[in-house]
């Protein structure tokens, strides 16, 4: 594992910093109007946004990660898996970074308490703690209609 790095994209939701592996990041864009879908939207699924002419589902990622957060939004991020895109508003996009595996502090999944956890581990970026998200768990939850 020595010398191996992982490419991640770091972004802010409120004061907290999160990261996703770069290969699931599709686009960063300005804030766009969200149209709700009546009878279907919940705290996580907010509605539809226009991304390059196609209407994509828009979610509030913070509702999955930490519902107590009330971040301000200035940009939108689109992530993609198997050609399906999910868009979510963020506070700020900070950019791509290559992080050595050795810099990661992996967090073991906690089964003793029944609560959701989408964080794979933490690393430090310029003295700031960044939580690396587990995109497979995220996408699975979103597809379930979490």
């Amino acid at each position, binding site marked *: 594992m020595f010398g191996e790095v992982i490419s991640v994209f770091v972004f802010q939701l409120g004061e907290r910093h999160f990261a996703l592996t770069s290969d699931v990041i599709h686009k960063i864009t300005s804030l766009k*109007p969200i149209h709700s*879908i009546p009878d279907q939207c919940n705290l996580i699924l907010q509605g*539809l946004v*226009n991304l390059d002419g196609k*209407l994509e589902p828009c979610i509030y990622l913070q509702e999955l990660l930490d519902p107590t957060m009330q971040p301000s939004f200035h940009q939108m991020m689109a992530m993609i898996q198997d050609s399906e895109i999910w868009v979510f508003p963020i506070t700020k996009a900070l950019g791509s970074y290559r992080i050595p595996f050795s810099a990661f502090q992996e967090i073991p999944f906690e089964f003793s308490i029944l609560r959701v956890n989408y964080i794979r581990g933490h690393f430090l970026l310029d003295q700031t703690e960044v939580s690396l998200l587990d995109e497979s768990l995220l996408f*699975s939850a*979103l597809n379930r209609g979490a």
Partner: protein
Amino acid sequence: MSSFDSVMYELFCSELKTQCRAFNQDLLEIEQHPEKQHLLVSLMRATHSIKGAARVVNLDPLVCLAHAMEDCMSHAQRSQTALTEEKINLLLQSSDILIALSQNPFEGFDNWWNKQLPSIELLIKQLSGESVTEEIVEHPPPIVEMQESSVSASSDYDRGVRIAAGNLNQLMNLSGESLIESHWLDPFKERLLSDKKQFAKIETLFEQLKNQLRVESCNLVAQNCLVDLHMQLNEVALRLGQRVAEMDEFNRHHASLSEHLYQNIIKSRMQPLAEGIEGFSRMVRDLSRKLNKEIRLEIEGQATLVDREILEKLEAPLNHLLRNAIDHGIELPQDRINAKKNKEGVLLISARHDKGMLEITVSDDGRGIDIERLKNKIIEKKMLGEQQALALTPEEAMDYLFLPGFSTASEITEVSGRGVGLDIVHSVVRELGGYVKIESNFGKGVRFILRLPLTRSVVQTLIVEIAGENYGFSLMHIEHALITSQVVDQTLLYGKEQIPLIDSWTLWKEHPPFRELPFCVVVLKNQENLYGLIVDKIVGEKELLVQPLDRRLKSHSRISSAALMEDGSPILIFDVKDLLKESETNLREKKKVLIIDDSKAFREREYQVLSEQGYDVDKAIDARDAWNALATSFYDLIITDIEMPGINGFELIRKIKKQPTLQNIPVMIVSSAGTERDKLKGNEVGAADYYVKDDLRDGTYLECVLKLLRG
């Protein structure tokens, strides 16, 4: 075995399709009109092309078949005689085999070829039966010059290309977005003009300042500065003016290009009606011969452009209508003579664009619909009481023909009579956003009139505002949009009628805001009924490029699709039929099941099997994902694999059983490991049942699930 690759095969099949289409058309035409001997030339041209294409791919039997076909035509041309019915049938059979080949996938070619070879060889013998040639003698090519490499197309402009529907949709979305983005330039230009005006004011102020200052009292440096500043200001003012003009020019050009791109991409979805109904002439011919009737099919408006998707979906309904007309509508020749009609019956398909809609009419000059007999059938089937049935207008009575299973046919033939065809016509046309009407003249014939949107992609929409967001209705379902005070209780006085009035907010189970008269009301039409829907604001009419709702959004009963407004913001389009459903459907309380398996294929199979049984199924990819799901949703049953990355299924079950809120949920193990030891371990950790992975449809799996859900 085949000696060509898939690319070559595809090109060959494409050529076959094109040539056989033209061949069939001309052959049926010359059969109807033997005097049109010039058609023999185009028939020979088609077979010559087929022969050349078959040579390129080394399919010698097809070369011989095409040559035998060509021989037939050549013989008829030389002897100036009409093609006999027997020869025409053989030629059509040959064409059928070629068309079947062109539709056969490359992977299955060898199998198909081995099966069909005897039929091909038989046809060659039959076609050559009266031929005077004993060896293949090359016929001179027809008048128009032929290329030996016959896999080339007619002209680049007319040549078709295959494009995946998804790619086309993406092109449409991007071109729509490009058009929206181009609209951004106009307001930007206005802002730039405003800056230019502001700059002109700066120049004026500077002049005033210069006039106030006594220049001769300024030192040389100050004087030079003033002169420089004046020059710079003039220069910038000039450049600003030029930039605005350039921007304007670019904007016009760009907007025009975007509009053209958009319109052309929309048009790429369209194709002429003729391309979708080319098989009908042949069907009518074959079926009428089978039933000993003489029927001619005429087509008007062949070049009418129809959306590809609509045309594809219309094939089945039109087929039904024609078969119905041939079987029940048009009489036998002697009966027609007795009724003082021409011996030969006529079926007519006509298409045209009318007021922004597509209208397709299928009519015959047969016996028409006996309305009295129809009413008796309605009474006989106990659909209405006698008095009510007899009081029906002809139009109301004919509406019953569209009901599933309703048929007035005295016998079921293999062609029609089960009462299935018209039901399909009705449901397909409605699904496409249109409607179908019947007009009948007893003894003289029937007309089926289908009215459909021109394209599914672009919908004329009425835009309204509800709870601060835009929604749309297809104009097809709008009776009227009005601002009115003619409201009495929960009804609207509309003309002479009192129609039910619904507040749009109640559709979302929201309490509507306090409203003062007048109300904005959209009067919606559902079959023959009218309903009023109160909205917050009526915005106006727009033509919108619609998109289906993403499959990740669970199917919504009231929303049919979505679109983008001119400013790029989303808008949802209502499904009026579902919106106005009167009876509330009580949703069966679905049992919720969580399946946990790291194998995507098995997970999807389980999902399908359980969903088909009506269960509400969630999927998890491993134990951690399952834990997240259990933290957020309640389940009636958990089904888990054992061998998974991270913690295995046994461990997961142990942890589930330790949680107070989860311990009572039954857990079923589904695993490929099926030793007694594994089953014992499953029992130890608290699993309620153990199923060894097999074909999930053998019944045992579902029995286990049902047993556990019943408790």
